[in-house]
């Protein structure tokens, strides 16, 4: 599903129902789903434009309109970005602007093997899986057993066979013997990332690789950088990335009145000035998400540790 484009909705797909920028939903295309009490019920999705029997989407073309009882919405092909926008939160998640920078900093390409810890809600995992494709592999670890289990199920439903999710505390137990010298890149989103840097070195290939860590606090970054320097990483670099979205539209302002009366009482265009405005899309914006620290581990024969 998430691995290859297709043109027509089939049973078992996850589709995106797009109503407006702030009304976007991921829906599983099947007859019945579990409701919040765990009982199987008919899969009918309620929107502000009326109800949708999700199963009826089978055979509909991606990118076309779906009829709702009081309107319509677009049925879109699920991308990792739309998934990030709609997924059920089990933790704080990493959003698309940061994900993009992380993927570029990890220097991933199809066929690569990458480690992610923790899995969290699987937001980044979907993007990692897309980038390494089915010829590569994502090993993702979470120390929370339930989270790891639910994420595993989700990856299966989405057909992401290149993702392996495991319940594991990587700070205590590392990434496992079987991954020693096997991976091209390591990503950490942990409370104590500096404690897992040594394990990252073990897992990275002998010809070296990339490392990236996402942390909200500067103290975490400082400790991680310290640890990276000690273990021979180079190109150590910390950035933060914020994305500003604009809303564009016509607006108009009244013209100032100076008491002089003209005969334009009924003519709106003379009393108001119309213009195209570009304003922030939301009144408040994310001022901080996290620091992205990345580094290169050189090949083993030129590594200098201190």
């Amino acid at each position, binding site marked *: 599903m998430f*691995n290859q484009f297709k043109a027509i909705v089939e049973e078992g797909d996850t589709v995106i129902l797009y109503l407006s920028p702030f009304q976007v939903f991921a829906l599983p295309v099947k007859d019945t789903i579990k409701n919040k009490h765990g009982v199987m019920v008919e899969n009918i999705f309620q929107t502000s434009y009326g109800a949708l029997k999700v199963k009826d989407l089978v055979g509909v073309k991606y990118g076309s309109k779906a009829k709702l009882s009081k309107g319509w919405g677009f049925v879109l092909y699920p991308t990792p970005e739309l998934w990030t926008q709609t997924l059920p939160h089990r933790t704080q998640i990493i959003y698309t*602007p940061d994900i993009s920078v992380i993927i570029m900093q990890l220097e991933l390409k199809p066929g690569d093997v990458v480690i992610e810890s923790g899995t969290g809600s699987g937001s980044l995992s979907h993007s990692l899986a*897309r980038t390494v*494709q089915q010829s590569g592999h994502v090993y993702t670890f979470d120390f929370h057993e339930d989270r790891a289990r639910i994420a595993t199920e989700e990856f299966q439903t989405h057909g992401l066979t290149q993702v392996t999710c495991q319940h594991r505390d990587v700070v205590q137990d590392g990434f496992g013997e079987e991954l020693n010298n096997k991976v091209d890149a390591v990503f950490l989103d942990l409370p104590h990332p500096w404690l897992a840097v040594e394990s990252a070195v073990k897992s990275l290939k002998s010809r*070296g690789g990339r490392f990236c860590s996402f942390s909200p606090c500067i103290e975490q970054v400082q400790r991680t950088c310290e640890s990276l320097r000690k273990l021979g990483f180079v190109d150590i670099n910390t950035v*933060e990335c914020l994305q500003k979205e604009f809303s564009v539209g016509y607006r108009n302002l009244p013209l100032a009145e100076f008491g002089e009366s003209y005969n334009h009482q009924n003519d709106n265009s003379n009393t108001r000035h119309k213009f195209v405005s570009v304003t922030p899309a939301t009144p408040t914006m994310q001022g901080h998400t996290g620091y992205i620290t990345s580094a290169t581990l050189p090949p083993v024969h030129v590594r200098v540790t201190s």
Partner: protein
Amino acid sequence: MTTSQDNLIQVGDYVVVQRWNFMKIVHFGGIKGNDFDVVLGNDIVQFSTAVGKPYWSTFKIIPEPAVKKSKKRLYKAELLDSNENPTLSAEILKEMECGSDNRDIKDDGKSQILSTANIHELRESGTSANEIVGHLIENSTTFQKKTEFAQEKYLSKKKRKYFDYILLRPTSLRLMIEINNKKDPSKFLGISMDTLSHMVTACNIQPGGNYLTYENGCSGLVSATILNYLDTTGKVLQVHPGPFPQKSSVLSLNFSTEKLNNYVSMSIRDMIDICKSLEKQNQSIELTKVEPVLENGTETLVKEEIKMETVDENGAETPVKEEVKMETVPLNNINSDSLNSTGSSVLAADLEQCDLDAKQTPTENSNKGNLKRKNSDTQMDSNKKSCHKIDLVLKSQVESILTKKVDGLIIVCKEHPESVLKKFIKYVAPSRPVIIYSLYREPLVELFMELKNTKLPVTNVRLTESFLRAYQVLPDRTHPLMSMNSTGGYLLTATVVE
């Protein structure tokens, strides 16, 4: 990457040359394959010794006697002895005293006793960087009064200038952007690393996907980026305004031949010819009621599109009797070049049927002037074609990409993007993205309003700007970098719908 897999530096590779924290990408051996001179500021380093050495090797540069009188200093590179450590300064610092603040330091320009000529002499005589820096410190009246941090900063600055160790490492997309944007962001039209990363993400690159880019003025950065994330079955079609594509970025990533085969470039002129012939083809096919048999097994999607477009065309110019002749012109034309190359065939019987069908169509409306103009346009087209030959293999490749419809359209150019978007949006499959970059906000705002007002089939239209802040992270000295790029440009993204 082909060459870095065996990890040896080979002639023809693009290599990152790193001197302390300065980096540059070099085409190793040059165009002729025998030019190993690398220019680093005022120094020219001869690197022929690096051929066949592993990537990540460090070289020491040794001064060479100047052959000609020139301002540049000549050096040759020698592979560093494995027990020689290319770091300098750490040892020097350990033995140094340092001050606690700068209260005793006066900026009177007299702190360095050595004159520029003295330093120049030292360099000419082949003194090592370590020794030069040692001399500089010895002859500095203020160095010992500087704080520990200030001393480190001073050394780092000197190192950049005198460091005589050079590292050769493989190129990567990340390094390419970093190197370029440090030097001259305008070479990539101001696209910052983060903005580029947002573009790739929005493009949702999938295995086997076909991506259309219109690039002008960014050295093929977008094509290079897509190729980097694409498997070996997908394709990048780069449309370029001039006769030749700008593709230095594509080359500098050392892609395998397999990957490079998936990079297709075509001039806008040839592209428009193909678009026109495809449109006519669709039109004629509908007229002949022939089901098109296309190479890759026509999907329902394509068929519907054909019908839709023909309706538009017929709406504009309803067939009349005089038109019969005109319509056969493009048909012959198509039969001879475009249809054959896409693997379709129009039989003679079908052609006759076409004539019959056309004759039977009722006359409803005629605008002779308009039709005649159309007719002469067509002839001009075929004339143009006869004097300007497009590579047939390339042509059929492009035609098959366009008929299947592309999985993403990215526009990064010096031109106003509106006309480009309108030209190519019909070749984008539904539920796929269009991404337009501009260094300026205004053209994208105009385009945003245009998308709202005209009924172009898109949804999820977003205008964004990215902000990237880099940090210095050092013990007790963590803060954002003092200078940063003020903008990384603007992005307009949208999803194409039916």
